[in-house]
């Protein structure tokens, strides 16, 4: 047991206690959490800084507004409805088209207008928010997945998670939806996590549940060695999020749109640790390196350059 403990320590694998005690508690002041827990605030901050986000079509804050929803939606063919304080992808409704007065979901099922309104009312009641607090519903642009990533995912929207520490991207992975994961990009629900080389933006090994895989189980395409488009933009977006929120340790989720390029989806003040498995690399050594040297890195370019120099593979 002690041998295993030492082996993990030598590889720099970070445990939950260390993440919480030495990084989240130390670098993420609690008063900044609302900036990332509320997706609407995150979106506004990112827009002010000129970072790409999915366009906001409208916000529903009280039940009365839900009745006017169809009028608001009439000008959009497809859109996404999500809770402002949701977590783990819960409560997200994607509408990919219309048929008469019906709304069509990506899997082909049709929704009545009343069902759509009911879903929004549920979001407002806090059904999907942390702690069950009343919430608001965001209606926004539906991502058209970039063709490179589309070939290695099954339905849903793959996203790129980058862990940023003091503005320096330290570890990254791309999360690919599978049939089992029901189109969701959550690793514990069965999505594939593939590590990404910070220096080059090419994918490394991929982990599916606890196994290492090389091909996507549904599409059959090779997963490792794929070049993620716009990689430098992704890194600079991720790095800018530090200036955006002030959170020292955060996870930045970015999607790639066919037409609009990288768009910031959400930020996370308590990013998970499975990204270490997807990369087969521990976080600790990289974090310590940044802790020692980040004082000399004053802007995004310097931070990204530092990451590319030190964190290849």
């Amino acid at each position, binding site marked *: 047991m002690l041998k295993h403990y030492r082996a993990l320590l030598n590889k720099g694998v970070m*445990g939950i206690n260390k993440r919480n*005690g030495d990084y989240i508690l130390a670098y993420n002041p609690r008063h900044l959490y609302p900036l990332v827990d509320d997706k609407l605030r995150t979106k506004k901050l990112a827009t002010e800084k000129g970072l790409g986000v999915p366009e906001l079509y409208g916000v529903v804050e009280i039940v009365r507004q839900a009745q006017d929803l169809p009028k608001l939606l009439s000008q959009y063919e497809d859109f996404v409805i999500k809770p402002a304080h949701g977590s783990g992808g819960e409560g997200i409704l994607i509408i990919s088209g219309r048929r008469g007065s019906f709304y069509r979901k990506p899997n082909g099922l049709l929704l009545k207008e009343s069902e759509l309104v009911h879903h929004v009312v549920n979001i407002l009641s806090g059904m999907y928010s942390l702690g069950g607090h009343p919430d608001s519903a965001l209606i926004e642009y539906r991502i058209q997945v970039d063709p490179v990533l589309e070939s290695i995912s099954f339905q849903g929207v793959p996203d790129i998670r980058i862990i940023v520490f003091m503005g320096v991207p330290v570890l990254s992975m791309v999360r690919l939806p599978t049939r089992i994961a029901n189109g969701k990009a959550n690793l514990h629900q069965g999505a594939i996590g593939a590590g990404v080389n910070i220096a080059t933006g090419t994918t490394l090994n991929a982990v599916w549940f606890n196994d290492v895989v090389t091909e996507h189980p549904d599409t059959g395409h090779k997963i490792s060695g794929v070049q993620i488009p716009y990689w430098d933009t992704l890194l600079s977006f991720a790095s800018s999020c530090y200036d955006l929120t002030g959170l020292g340790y955060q996870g930045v989720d970015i999607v790639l749109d066919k037409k609009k390029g990288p768009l910031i989806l959400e930020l996370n003040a308590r990013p998970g640790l499975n990204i270490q*498995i997807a990369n087969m690399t521990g976080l600790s050594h990289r974090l310590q390196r940044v802790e020692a040297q980040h004082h000399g890195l004053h802007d995004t370019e310097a931070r990204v350059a530092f990451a590319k120099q030190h964190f290849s593979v």
Partner: protein
Amino acid sequence: MNNRHLYGLVFVLMAAGLGLFFFKVTVLGFPVTPFEESEIWDVEASVSFVAQKKPVRFSLFLPRNTERTSIVNEQFLSRGYGLITRNDDGNRQAVWSIRKDTGEQTLYYHATVQREGISSGRKIKKIPDVVAPGFEGPFLDAANSVVSEIVSESADMDILVAALLKKLNSDKPDDHVLLLLGKKNTLDKKLQTAVQILALHGSPARVAHGIRLKEQGRDLPFVHWLQVFDNGFWKNYHPLTFEPEIPEDYLFWWHGAAPVFTAKGVDNPKVKISVSLSLESAINALVDRGQVLTPQLIAFSLFSLPIHVQTTYRILLMIPVGALLLVFLRNIVGVKTFGTFTPVLIALAFRETELVWGLFFFSIMVALGLSVRFYLEHLKLLLVPRIASVLIVVVILMAVFSIITHKLGLVRGLSVAIFPMVILTMTIERMSIVWEERGPSEAMQQGFGSLLVASAAFAVMNIKMIEHVLFVFPEMLLVCLSGTLLIGRYTGYRLTELFRFKVFLKD
């Protein structure tokens, strides 16, 4: 992080707690272990009856000082009743009376009793009168033949009494004994008959009644034995071993043929005797004997609280221990649980139900509640009404469960009622959400984790030694706190993470 500050704080707390602990143990002589064989007991008689708008008169025999036990302190709770106590032929009696009263009434007698070493006591010069045996006709003949039989076999009083008791207790009693005992051959009746036969023989004798100061308990039964006057002393004879001695833990209460109480003008009179170890008095006794030097420490300790509040604190003080264990299991071992303190609260409920039944009830309630919760999912209810519905269903399930187990004769089933239902409801809600969002295996893992932690907390919180130490030395809570603070800065791996990250160990 400023760990030095934390270590300093931990050191101060630990030193304060342990320092006070050792001071109290070594200098003041506080007991570290619970009293196994306590000398001092709290005895309580609760008298209850329903008054009938008539004058009430309630007489109750009371224990008295004997050569075996002394009454250190006694109190009456009379609620407006007139109270007199009187001595009568070696018995003490309390008489409560009132001109008129209605409804259900409860009066209390409370005594602190100290056991003395066994001594033979004072020699009584005047030989007590022998009460007339009161046998007539065939009964007199039968008694006379019993007397002549046992006298012919015996050389002294011990052998005579043993022979008599043996005869009366025989599995195959002869015709004389059958006639004398009649159909109602209880121990009390046998002893009364023995008294009558000894009277016929010319020896003063009486039946003594008392309770055992052995285990703490409520509603204790009376024990009976025989007392025979021999050579200036009342000697005690055990009714079943026939030996001229009774167990040390017998407390003499009263003697004679009369019942422990007589009541006039009331319905449904009852007397219940309860006994508990008196830790407070034991420590006060240390003070009296000069072994505890600073009584101020007692005056401001938990012992100064009323007994029922003390009982509550005995349980409350165990919660920090459960919390420390929970912190250890969650942050160092890495067991997943529902809610933060749910397992500790479940463990508290287990104290009433016992572990195995508790686990069984809890699993059944959660399983049933969960199936209802999954059904409610279809109705698309909003959050608060949904949780409230689950709560209502949980209460209904608990009631139904209690009724069914009661009908089946399982007494334990009733204790399901003490499960904290809000905790049950929240466990069900959390479990169903984890089930939906992270799958059944994760939900089961957390469910088993919760029960595991609850069982461990139950086991630790049930250790009498720890309960005693925390109650007598509440400063140990500071040690508990410092342990928790230390774990609060443990940033190493959790035991379960060694498995989570096992792919890193492959090469």
